[in-house]
């Protein structure tokens, strides 16, 4: 410390002061509610991140941090429904409008988030999730036995470790990435976004990955039990996963544009559909 130059000392003090100033402008509020099983929690945040975490117990804890006095946070409980909403006290955008939400919920609660700019994250849940954002990046992981509905305009979407899920993803331009996602129903629709699926497609379910022009990349282990078909109407398909030819595929197979077949007992139905994109299926 003694050898430190005066210049460095000064800037350290300055940084300290800045931190205090920034801290003073931040206003952290905490709301706590007790709910019964099957509660529903809705968060609407025009600007800024929303983080959802499932936990044991019957408490909903909402921690909201505002960064200016131009916005405020409203939370209320109506029986078993909790609503948290950002309100603008004056018209503003940019950093002033931002609110950060951290929300702890019982893992069986159903949660709806609307956060146009995001990012939105949700983890450790067993209740239904409906997540929406225009440009929001959406990240969902460690979820089981739940509906997961995600909709974005341009935000990228990533799901990991979803078991027994009813997954429905719709995005216009967001890239979609699924790692170890399985369940009775998994459907992904995008326009220009790419779709990557890495996993084994579970043990009996319907998987439907559809886009207009992005790439669809699927990587699966040899142990996967699938009844798989792929078709790109004006684009191309590539396959290096061993499939047994089907006697009666659902559509006429065109070399380079489509293929279909089964592996193992063909438990899960997997349909890959692109209008003009490239579809690639690989063995892991």
């Amino acid at each position: 410390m003694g050898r430190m130059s005066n210049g460095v000392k000064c800037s350290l003090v300055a940084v300290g002061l800045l931190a205090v100033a920034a801290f003073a402008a931040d206003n952290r509020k905490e709301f706590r509610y007790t709910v019964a099983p099957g509660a529903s929690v809705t968060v609407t945040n025009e600007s800024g991140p929303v983080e959802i975490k499932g936990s044991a117990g019957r408490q909903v804890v909402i921690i909201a941090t505002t960064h200016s006095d131009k916005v405020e946070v409203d939370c209320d409980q109506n029986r078993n429904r909790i609503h948290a909403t950002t309100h603008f006290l004056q018209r503003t955008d940019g950093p002033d409008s931002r609110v950060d939400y951290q929300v702890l919920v019982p893992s069986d609660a159903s949660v709806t988030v609307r956060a146009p700019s995001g990012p939105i994250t949700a983890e450790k849940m067993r209740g239904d999730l409906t997540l929406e954002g225009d440009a929001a990046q959406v990240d969902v992981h460690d979820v089981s036995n739940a509906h997961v509905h995600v909709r974005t305009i341009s935000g990228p979407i990533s799901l990991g470790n979803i078991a027994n899920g009813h997954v429905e993803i719709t995005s216009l331009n967001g890239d979609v990435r699924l790692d170890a996602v399985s369940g009775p129903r998994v459907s992904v629709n995008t326009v220009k976004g790419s779709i990557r699926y890495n996993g084994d497609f579970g043990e009996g379910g319907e998987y439907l990955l559809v886009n207009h022009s992005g790439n669809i990349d699927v990587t699966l282990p040899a142990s996967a039990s699938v009844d798989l078909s792929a078709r790109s109407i004006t684009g191309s398909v590539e396959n290096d996963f061993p499939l047994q030819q089907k006697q009666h595929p659902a559509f006429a197979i065109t070399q380079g544009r489509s293929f279909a077949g089964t592996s193992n007992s063909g438990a899960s139905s997997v349909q890959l559909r692109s209008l003009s994109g490239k579809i690639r299926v690989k063995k892991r």
Partner: protein
Amino acid sequence: MNCAEFQEVLPDIIESGGNPEEEAHLKSCAVCSDLVQDLRYIADTAKLLLPMRDPSPRVWTGIRGALQREGLVRPLAGTVRFRPQAAAVLSQRRWVRGGSMLAVAALLLFAIGIIWLRNNSTRQPQPAVTARVPAAAPAAAADDDDAQMLNFVQHKSPALLATYRENLESVNAYIRDARRRIEQDPNDMGAHDHLIRAYDEKALLYEMAMARSGE
């Protein structure tokens, strides 16, 4: 007859048309004819409002739970088996496919939210009072809608206008490509599926725009 008298009877005659005296006032009075035109325009626009939002999945979860508790569904081998929703939606699409072209058209229009058929079937007879009925074809209505949607976004969140415009263009390109393919091969069911999905994507864009309550 003066304006006050005319407007007194207006609630009764706006649907059905008035007697000759009332019609005469309407023809001669700009204030009343503008009023009638506005009210009629509101009613006409209302016909075009769309059922746009799907309920949250928790609604079905609730229904399913209640069905099971009430024993309204037949148990199969001890447990009730619900098919995954994807299959339900797929089969829903299949039966549309199996139906007439009219049904397909209805679904497509529904997807962008124009309940066009309804206007032409169950509506009250055209009234004798001056009517301003939008005569646009669905396609033109769609262009019009696009412009209105972008206007709305511009008003509510100007920063997002570019994103919405770009995505609107790409989803319209999706629709065009699917249409072109169907023209080439009307039996290509895969292309029909893409078209329906493209309209779903477009509906999403509209919904997102609507959800921007802004302020």
